[in-house]
């Protein structure tokens, strides 16, 4: 049984209410931070913890916080990125739905560390019912003196506002989120200037993921060094993984980043194996935008070492033979899944969600979707595969925000690892409409007897 720091109390009855949360030891970190620590020591503690951003990029949080500009007389802001829209990722939803006070606790401590008095939770529009849960929790916290003016008699003021987005994936990108929060069209800004210098209303801003901010609570409670002892290498602490796809037990799991991918998929504590005793074909380990990995590269790296569920091990081998931990949206595909169809689904998503600001992403995502659509429906030619490869290459790295990369990577990885499946689709246009390519040499090395 791994260490659980975030969601261990999620099953306590009534934990959503303030009374139960407080009785279970909630808001201790606020007391500790505001009374015994100062902003600098909190940032120092977060740096020591080695906490990395849980939204996908994995940037060290302590370092991000230390970048924030502190000009005289200009207010600073903390924005919580709750616009969790990556297909396959639903960890923040779980966290906010069941433990709203944990997020608020983390937000108060982080606001104190950053000197931010007005803090925003930008939540995706589809999470309408969670907005109500958070509003309720904010009212409770306010009534009990954890929010508002003069918290715990220290003179620190903190207000938390929930802002609902209108349902755009692009608004999960931090500068697009800021634009949207300001009431504008959610187009990503061109960086620099970075939000740490000019963010919301041109004021210094830090944007952090829900899980990152929730993880501040155990860091303050147990100390940064203790937190850093959990996990391995530069992947410290615990990570929420939202597992879905063809597995027996889909759901949100908290792992301490030392377990292997094999254990995560097959152990009964986590995913519980592939559904229906089928074989594993491929997996997208970190949300839809990270490269897909075939089973043989998922469980072992290209050099034959065991792959673990952490930042370093999953990205071992770079994009040639590795992937990314990303936001922790673990999508498992079994032998019956068609990679071409899967890639088309992803391409359609990115085409629909591209903001249309910069040309490679605006035009390229649509083009890729049309070609994949053609291949999937049996009208493709072999030249289309090379064309797809060329398009993704010209999108990647040439766009304003990472959405272009996110759209290019899944296509690139699918072609890199499953090129023969694409070719089979093209060479057998009729057969491919009724049957599936199956496993071929991607066979899961661990054969599960039926």
């Amino acid at each position, binding site marked *: 049984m791994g260490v659980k720091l975030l969601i261990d109390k999620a099953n306590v009855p009534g934990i959503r209410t303030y009374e139960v949360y407080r009785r279970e030891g909630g808001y201790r970190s606020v007391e500790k931070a505001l009374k015994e620590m100062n902003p600098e020591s909190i940032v120092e503690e977060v740096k020591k913890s080695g906490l990395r951003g849980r939204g996908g990029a994995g940037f060290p949080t302590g370092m991000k916080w230390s970048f924030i500009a502190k000009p005289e007389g200009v207010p600073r802001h903390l924005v919580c990125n709750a616009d969790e829209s990556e297909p396959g990722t639903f960890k923040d939803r779980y966290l906010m739905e069941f433990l709203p006070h944990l997020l608020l606790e983390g937000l108060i401590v982080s606001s104190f560390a950053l000197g931010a008095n007005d803090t925003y939770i930008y939540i995706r529009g589809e999470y309408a019912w969670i907005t109500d849960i958070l509003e309720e929790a904010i009212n409770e916290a306010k009534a009990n003196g954890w929010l508002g003016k003069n918290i715990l008699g220290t003179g620190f003021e903190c207000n938390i506002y929930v802002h609902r987005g209108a349902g755009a994936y692009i608004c999960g990108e931090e500068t697009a989120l800021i634009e949207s929060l300001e009431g504008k069209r959610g187009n990503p800004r061109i960086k620099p200037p970075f939000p740490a210098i000019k963010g919301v209303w041109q004021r210094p801003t830090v944007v952090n993921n829900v899980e990152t901010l929730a993880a501040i609570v155990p860091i303050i409670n147990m100390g940064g060094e203790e937190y850093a002892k959990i996990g391995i290498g530069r992947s410290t602490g615990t990570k929420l993984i939202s597992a879905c796809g063809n597995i027996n037990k889909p759901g949100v799991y908290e792992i301490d980043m030392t377990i292997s991918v094999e254990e995560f998929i097959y152990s009964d504590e986590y995913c519980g194996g592939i559904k229906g005793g089928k074989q594993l074909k491929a997996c997208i380990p970190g949300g839809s935008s990270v490269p897909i990995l075939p089973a043989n590269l998922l469980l072992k790296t290209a050099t034959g070492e065991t792959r673990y569920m952490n930042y370093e091990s999953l990205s071992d081998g770079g994009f040639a033979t590795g992937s990314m931990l990303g936001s922790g949206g673990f999508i498992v595909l079994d032998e019956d899944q068609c990679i071409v169809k899967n890639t088309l689904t992803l391409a359609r998503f990115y085409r629909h969600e591209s903001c249309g600001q910069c040309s490679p992403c605006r035009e390229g995502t649509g083009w890729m979707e049309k070609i994949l659509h053609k291949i999937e429906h049996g009208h493709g030619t072999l030249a289309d595969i090379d*064309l797809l490869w060329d398009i993704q290459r010209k999108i990647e790295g040439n766009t304003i925000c990472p959405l272009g990369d996110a759209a290019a990577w899944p296509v690139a990885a699918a072609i890199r690892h499953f090129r023969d499946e694409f070719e089979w689709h093209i060479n057998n246009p009729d057969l491919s409409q009724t049957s599936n390519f199956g496993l071929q040499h991607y066979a899961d090395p661990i054969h599960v007897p039926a």
Partner: protein
Amino acid sequence: MSEQILFKVTIDNITIEVPAGTTVLQAARLIGGQVAPPAMCFYSKLEGSGGKCRTCLVEVSKGSEKDPRPMPKLVVSCRTTVMDGMEVKNITSEKVLDARAGVVEFLLLNHPLDCPICDQAGECHLQDLSFDHGKAETRYEFQRRTFKKHDLGKNIQLHMTRCILCYRCVYTADQLTNKRVHGILDRGDHAEIATHIEKSLDNEFIGNVIDVCPVGALTDKTFRFKNRVWFLKPMDAHRDCPTCSGRVTLWNRGDEVYRVTARKDQWGEIEDTPEGQPGWICNTCRFDKKEAADWIIEGPREISRQSVIAQGHYAGQIGTTKPTEIFAAVNDGRTPHLLMDIHDESEVNLPNVHLGKIQGPSNGDTFNTNNTHKA
């Protein structure tokens, strides 16, 4: 006054000194020629423009004197400021040329390429760009996105099909006029420039959106289909205008004024007035003053852009008479009449054959066999 800090920047092995805060693109424009990256969305007179079209991508092979690390990705030169000792590769970088060819292809993907019937042809930035960096053939075999034409007020027409979403007109309306009533609706490749619920643009300075538009998406209705720009003779002229600077370029044929635009420099941007203000012109000057008598002509305008308009530019021939129409003379008095109004409907956008169904490159025979019912 404090002394201006000068930064040394090397672009394509040419070193110049520019004031701190200059962008790489503007530094490259000081060098000029091929070194200056093309720009479709950046407009130096509009704050916040740039960074969107990605045609001006350059490689920074050395960040600065202090931090010589190269930048990992290609950067947009229009929004990257120079650092002291920076080394930039534009046309000397394979990576840049490859990426730029990709961007041109993307920009042309949904563009109708109806240059033969487009008013912008001849002074179109996209035309120049595809001439310099594009390929002769397209790899795109699907239907292009199309939109209906919209009249934005009585003088401006929006042909959204040609738009490359550079956002210049949005910034112009934002920064030049008090109230912007048009913007971008939707997102991705179905995003469009639109007025919110079909309002017309009727601000006094809104005509400038025609000048900033790099393609033929926004056109002057008083000039539409009247003439090709390369047949016209640009003349610098001015008038005493109560609302604007009144400094314009007249596009004449003989004595007839076909259209009026603001004066543009060699990068296609509005020139500054002698007072140092951008020389935007008002709607009255642009749309209503179409008589030579309204203007005081200063002299022929030098067109230094490499486009086709420079071809028909006969410097020094002021006051030439209107060319005689020879059609009637050679046709024994008969004047040609239009068989079909090509301006209303372009077949380019309504292909009757699904190109995706054709194996291999399509040609006239394929088209004819697939369209026998038409014969």
